[in-house]
């Protein structure tokens, strides 16, 4: 594998629901530990892109590659195991489980013991369980939830639930993190904290991040590259300041100047 190879590459990716092309000719290249923003007005197809990349929908056109490996047709859990993890626009935690358990659930890569060693409590069980206990607590402290390990997920405040979701995604050992509107419903302080966490994890775990966001100021502030889609088509691509002055983007968000 050469260093130039993008972590995620999609070429001519598209999906049509009957006649409706929700996403069309979608191309993207995300490099190692890059922070990439995907923006667009409501209904532009951003979440559909996420659903394509995570195997919820199967693309009807094109293909996407993770580290050069074709991922088309793989199911959600296979894609996660290969290295793409996501968070959800409307938080999806295991509500009745503790924060620590939420993280542990996603650590399938570190837990390989068989039913036999689970039932007979063989050394493999104790070893792996105590190892992931340490690792899960570490991940929780990365997202500033170190002291919330034994809290039941549904009792955590909103901002912390969002961060717990990120910790759970990290636990899968992924290379590319998809964040679906991570700052939605957060107050400015919480958003600030979140941005910092995103930056920390990006460098600490050497992962790339693809971020969907409505909040333009947030995207402009942290993303290195931005891609704008509207009606399933890519309308602009570039650095934040280029996007901010792009006529097509302004039109998509604010409407065309009729004069």
């Amino acid at each position, binding site marked *: 594998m050469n260093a130039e190879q993008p972590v995620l590459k999609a070429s001519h990716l598209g999906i049509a629901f009957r006649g409706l092309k929700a996403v069309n000719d979608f191309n993207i290249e995300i490099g190692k530990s890059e922070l990439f923003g995907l923006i667009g007005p409501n209904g532009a197809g951003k979440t559909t892109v996420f659903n394509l990349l995570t195997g919820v929908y199967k693309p009807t056109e094109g293909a996407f590659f993770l580290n050069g490996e074709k991922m088309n047709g793989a199911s959600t*859990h296979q894609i996660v195991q290969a290295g793409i993890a996501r968070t959800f626009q409307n938080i*999806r935690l295991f509500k009745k489980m503790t924060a620590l358990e939420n993280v542990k659930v996603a650590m399938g890569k570190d837990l390989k013991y068989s039913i036999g060693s689970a039932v007979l409590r063989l050394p493999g069980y104790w070893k792996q369980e105590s190892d992931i206990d340490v690792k899960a607590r570490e991940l929780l402290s990365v997202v500033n939830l170190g002291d919330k*390990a034994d809290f039941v997920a549904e009792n955590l405040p909103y901002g912390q639930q969002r961060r717990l979701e990120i910790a759970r995604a990290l636990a899968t050992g992924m290379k590319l993190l998809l964040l679906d509107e991570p700052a939605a419903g957060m107050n400015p302080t919480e958003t600030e904290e979140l941005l910092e966490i995103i930056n920390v994890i990006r460098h600490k775990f050497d992962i790339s991040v693809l971020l969907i966001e409505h909040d333009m100021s947030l995207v402009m502030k942290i993303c290195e590259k931005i891609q704008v889609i509207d009606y399933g088509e890519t309308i602009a691509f570039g650095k934040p300041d280029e996007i901010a002055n792009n006529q097509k983007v302004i039109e998509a968000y604010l409407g065309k100047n009729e004069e």
Partner: protein
Amino acid sequence: MGKFKDKRWAYLINFIAVCVLFISLTAVFNSGSLGTRSTYIKGIATTACYTIIVVASLNLLTGFMGEFSLGHAGFMSVGAYSSAIVTNALIGKGIPNLLLFIIALLVGGLAAAVTGVIVGAPTLRLRGDYLAIVTIAFAEIVRVTFCNLQITGGGRTMSGITKLSDFSSCFWVMVICVTCMYMYVRSRFGRTIVAIREDYIAAAASGINVTFYKVLTFTISAFFAGIGGAMYAHYMTAMIPTNFNFNYSAELLTEVIIGGTGSLTGSVIGAAFLSSLPELMRQFADYRMLVYSVVLLFVMIFKPSGIFGTYEFSLTGVVSKLFRKIKLGRASQ
């Protein structure tokens, strides 16, 4: 706020407690203090043992994985009949009774597990109500099939099954089965199925192969139900396919819910209590089913999550909690 604890000591102590329970129960049965009723009560206790296994196995599905099975009696039936057929074929071949009993249990369990895979693999892609209906249909198919097969007695009572189990063997098989299920639940497998119950989309997004774990758990559940059935067959020595009808499946589900969905302790207590309740209330004669339903109603009104909720009883857990309270009490003085 605990770090990860090695619980091997706790397991040992709890095991000793189970031994003590067993010794005291047998002592009571043998002391003659129960007089003529001794055998009768021992019978109830034995019945409770296999009911506990089946109810706990159903709780794996309903409580931990959140899928309803309304046909668990079907798996029990498969286990009971297959094991009875095998022991009938093997009897008189000089195999010691204990070994034969173990073979019967394994045959019953495996037969039920195989049917579990056959039923589970195509249907567990479905969720909720659909699975419940499929399991009802499954149990009915089993019942009707066994009513029409020569080898199962063809709708008449299949009798003359060798009696291989008594109270002590049933008790220990029950302890082993419940322990196995507890260990399964308190491991990565249990965590995974609870996660699937909580949110299957998020579970898949955490890298869990949802269908695989569902079929696996369904199969394990069927396996233990089959063992329960095999114990039933070799304790009762006679049975009829209609014993395992829809009513019985519903009764098993009731015991799970009353005991507490998501608590194996609840299943043990719930099954022991509810399976012996009708017998214990014989003196109320005609009113006993009325009392039974009133008990159910009260539990559902005042404790909808079941008597135990998701709480698991552990002797060491209770003792250490007690000590902590005493310490706190001293500190505050």
